[in-house]
């Protein structure tokens, strides 16, 4: 027998309790990892390399305020901008849906091509999209989710705009961080709206990351003191402004995570305390045989650690496997595309489990250290 065997036999002496403890640690760790991942996904949107080169220009007053279409000529002249397109959020509902989870944007197809550097055309041809004003470019995830094929029609009921769209799928794109969107001709939207001469935002690409800040400053300056002052910001900053609309997600998820961790702590401490309390006499015997406080503390810590590690491995591993191999779009009705359990999150979950194991071992260890052998044996005359 080794010390390890001894610890293992002690840990598994009450198999049902050990199993339930491992299960509760596993479930709590899985929940914690899921919450941490959700927080990450909601507060740190996925970012591609090309995203750092893209800039969104919107009305300084509010995103809901349109911009004059004539601003395009000014933008075309600003050095550092290599591509620019009108970019208007349509916000329609697809088919009979009351909430459609993928966005539709009106763009200038010829100009938009210069912004989709990381994407590729998976089906159809971009030329067909450019040529046909009633056509659209659709993300591969949306095609798959709705079982669409090239040439199918996509009908959208306007919610922001008082018009409906009837678009023919001309091409499919893939390879971007979000392969869900639908893009169609801005000219079609203009025509349906009676040519208002406005756009929702401008979407532009800068020559390099180094000049991005300069370009943003130039764009903002170019429209200063005009009827439509603008606010230019990187794609990431723009996404973050959307996230702020969700409220303090971080605080909410943080609070729930704290409750999970606290509950996990109570479960582990309670289990370890019970396990040690019922073995008080045996621990006194070990002291009698010459085992010192530090050795008994090591036994308790190892037992606590073992239960936590097995539970954490099952829970964190299970969460990773579940979120990695599950069709998230289907599961969340398109709300989430990416739900990456990163090594950092796995490490965070593991550290929490390890700390819990240590904390759970402290109280019984102190009790055992304070216990006199005689008190433990309860053999006083």
């Amino acid at each position, binding site marked *: 027998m080794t010390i390890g065997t001894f610890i293992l036999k002690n840990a598994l002496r009450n198999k049902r309790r050990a199993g339930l403890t491992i299960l509760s640690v596993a479930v709590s760790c899985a929940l914690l990892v899921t919450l941490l991942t959700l927080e990450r996904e909601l507060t740190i949107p996925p970012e591609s390399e090309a995203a750092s080169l893209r800039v969104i220009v919107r009305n300084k007053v509010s995103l809901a305020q349109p911009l004059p279409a004539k601003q395009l000529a000014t933008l075309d002249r600003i050095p550092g901008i290599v591509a620019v397109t009108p970019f208007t959020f349509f916000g329609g509902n697809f088919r009979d849906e009351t909430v459609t989870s993928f966005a539709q944007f009106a763009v200038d197809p010829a100009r938009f091509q210069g912004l989709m550097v990381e994407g590729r055309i998976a089906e159809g041809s971009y030329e067909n999209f450019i040529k046909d004003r009633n056509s659209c470019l659709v993300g591969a995830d949306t095609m798959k989710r709705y079982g669409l094929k090239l040439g199918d029609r996509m009908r959208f009921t306007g919610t922001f705009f008082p018009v409906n769209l009837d678009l023919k799928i001309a091409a499919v794109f893939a390879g971007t961080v979000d392969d869900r969107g639908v893009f169609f001709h801005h000219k079609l939207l203009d025509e349906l709206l009676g040519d208002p001469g406005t756009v929702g935002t401008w979407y532009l690409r800068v020559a390099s990351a180094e000049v991005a800040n300069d370009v943003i400053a130039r764009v903002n300056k170019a429209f200063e003191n005009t009827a439509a002052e603008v606010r230019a910001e990187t794609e990431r900053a723009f996404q973050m402004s959307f996230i702020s609309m969700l409220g303090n997600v971080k605080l909410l998820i943080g609070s729930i995570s704290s409750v999970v961790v606290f509950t996990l702590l109570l479960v582990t401490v309670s289990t370890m305390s019970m396990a040690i309390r019922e073995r008080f006499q045996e621990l006194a015997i070990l002291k009698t*045989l010459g*085992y010192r406080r530090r050795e008994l503390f090591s036994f308790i810590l190892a037992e606590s650690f073992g239960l936590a590690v097995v539970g954490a491995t099952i829970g964190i591993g299970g969460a990773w496997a579940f979120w990695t191999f599950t069709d998230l779009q289907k599961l969340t009705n398109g709300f989430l595309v990416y739900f990456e359990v990163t090594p950092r999150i796995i490490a965070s979950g593991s550290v929490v489990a390890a700390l819990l194991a240590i904390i759970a071992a402290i109280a019984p260890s102190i009790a055992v250290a304070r216990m006199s052998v*005689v008190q433990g044996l309860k053999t006083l*005359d």
Partner: protein
Amino acid sequence: MSTANVVTIRHLSKIYRQGEINVTALNDISLDIRSGEFLALMGPSGSGKSTLLHIVAGIDRPTSGECQVQGVDVTQLNESELADWRNQNIGFVFQTFNLIPVLTAFENVELPLLLTRLRSGERRRLVNTALELVGLEDRARHLPRQLSGGQEQRVAIARALVTDPSLVVADEPTGNLDSNSAHDVLTILQVLRRSAGKTVIMVTHDPKAAAFGSRSIHLEKGELVNGEAGAGLDRSQPAMTP
């Protein structure tokens, strides 16, 4: 102090505090226990015999006085030193056997050896020898619940002997056993003293058990009743052999 003394106790007192009341468990005890003795500590419940045994074995501390075991004043050792000292010098046998229920007989006996630097093969040899000595080599793989009370106590004796301590202390070792098993256990303790030269101190209130000892002393209310009763007595046979 005689060099032949394994235990030398001088003016030993132990007072417990129970709320506002002081309870005197031992009162000014002085006692010598010679090497190779089988001493029976007798007395009624609450007389302080187990307390005395615990102090000699280094698992309890006196309020005052001196307790030297093999020349070491155990009252002066700290917690860690006492643990090491117990592992190397004392073998314990308890009334309730106190085996670890999830370990086999072999593993229970091996427990004290895990604290040594012995290799696994050497540990196995020592454990097998100890189990043979108590006649339980064929029960090595049995869990305590698969053994009878007498067998459990013999495993406990094997555990007490496996580190080859010079002093074996037994606290009512036959208290939970039937007469046949009690006889077996007492015989083993007697053999230990006679063949291996171990010093055995046994707490008991059973005169039949005490009769297996070479000497018996009586405690009452924390004091030796008639000095060292039967001092120097070294019977070669128990007075009452079943």
